[in-house]
């Protein structure tokens, strides 16, 4: 079937964003990206993607607004509690043996996963020797992650998740309520480096003992997934751990051989010795 006009416009917009701003969304899974772009067109008040493209190219203030639609910022603290329970029970005992630890939260979005891990590591007595790296391509999301402020009405879910994840403390130990917002304790990010990093265009990121990257790869096509998983392999220390989202896997990845399944039902993998 001949491509329809909207598909051509999307192709051109992604090319424009790449050439002018070096944000590369060309290899994102197309069906959901198209949905988000059509939503952006409507919300930002344009009649067509082409009209939106013109402003994106000529008005620098448009890019951050568009990025909020192109990237996905939906998450929750301790999302899939069983994943965090598996980290606690199966992975943490291995991490205890190291003198110092590096943990990379790749695609940290607004920081929910980062704070979950920071709390988990504090509960397990590992926080003092751990350096966290939280990266994302969206500067607005990085800012939100650094602020660590969430609407108070989300806290009930976060608290339930935390308990189900085997939480040893109370989540309320880590935030103060303030005008309908929960402000998370600054000390949780004492050992966090926030940084702009793209799994699509940037390179290896230090020697990590754990990389947690949940519900990021599903927005990539297969080729990009391969690139990102290759990057994870090269960024992990030998026997380092990789945690993915509950519906993500290395099954279709050309780098699957570099990893073994560590907790298969939670999509936690371990890098081999080679």
């Amino acid at each position, binding site marked *: 079937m001949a491509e329809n006009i909207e598909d051509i416009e999307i192709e051109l917009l992604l090319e424009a964003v790449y050439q002018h701003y070096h944000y590369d969304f060309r290899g994102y899974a197309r*069906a*959901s990206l198209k949905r988000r772009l059509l939503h952006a067109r409507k919300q930002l008040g344009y009649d067509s993607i082409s009209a939106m493209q013109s402003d994106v190219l000529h008005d620098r203030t448009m890019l951050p607004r568009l990025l909020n639609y192109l990237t996905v910022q939906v998450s929750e603290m301790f999302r899939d509690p069983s994943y965090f329970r598996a980290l606690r029970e199966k992975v943490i005992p291995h991490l205890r043996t190291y003198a110092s630890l590096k943990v990379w939260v790749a695609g940290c979005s607004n920081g929910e996963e980062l704070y979950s891990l920071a709390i988990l590591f504090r509960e397990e007595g590992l926080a003092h020797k751990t350096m966290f790296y939280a990266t994302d391509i969206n500067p607005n999301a990085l800012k939100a992650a650094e602020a660590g402020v969430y609407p108070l009405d989300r806290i009930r879910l976060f608290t339930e998740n935390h308990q189900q994840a085997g939480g040893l403390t109370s989540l309320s130990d880590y935030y103060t309520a303030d005008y309908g917002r929960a402000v998370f304790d600054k000390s949780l990010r004492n050992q966090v480096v926030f940084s702009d990093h793209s799994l699509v265009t940037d390179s290896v990121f230090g020697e990590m003992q754990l990389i947690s990257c949940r519900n990021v790869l*599903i927005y990539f096509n*297969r080729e990009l997934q391969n690139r990102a998983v290759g990057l994870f392999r090269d960024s992990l220390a030998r026997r380092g751990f990789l945690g993915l*989202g509950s519906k993500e896997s290395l099954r279709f990845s050309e780098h699957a051989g570099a990893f073994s399944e560590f907790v298969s039902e939670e999509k936690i993998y371990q890098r081999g010795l080679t």
Partner: protein
Amino acid sequence: MTGKAVVIGASAGGVQALSQILPALPGNFPLPIFVVVHVPPRRDNALVQLLAAKCALQVKEAEDKEMVTGGTIYFAPADYHLLVEEGGTLALSSEEPVNHSRPAIDVLFESAADAYGPALTGIVLTGANHDGAEGLKAVGAAGGVALVENPVTAEVSTMPAAALAACPSARAMSFADIVTHLRDWAVA
């Protein structure tokens, strides 16, 4: 136009309705079938197991980046949207709920309408909300076949009635007629 795929959306009463339709399809049914049922966001796929035991066709939970094969019934996993990519692979997404639902019927139907155009059949079954109405409209607009469980006999009529109202080409049918309509693909 030959058919290439079927999408089905169901909500309240959906398990019953699907149990009437899917097990009635023969083992040589050639098309892939994608199904969204609104279920609570839990991880077990009890519905897949239930229907797998009753169906001649393979029934499975859809996986991200999986290649679509004919004669297979794919269910959207709980708490993820299911989309079909042009070129015949599946994609999952954890984006915001649509119509308060994740998975949402509209998300599946609209992506499938894009991918298959007039070669798609969309079916909206029983339910107590309006999910699927926009999606079925997209199926019809792309030239696909739009079917709806008869609201008069549906366990909950809201969803099929909304779909019927939104999609001008939609036809209301009984389970038996829907099954007959689908079985035609198996002999075609």
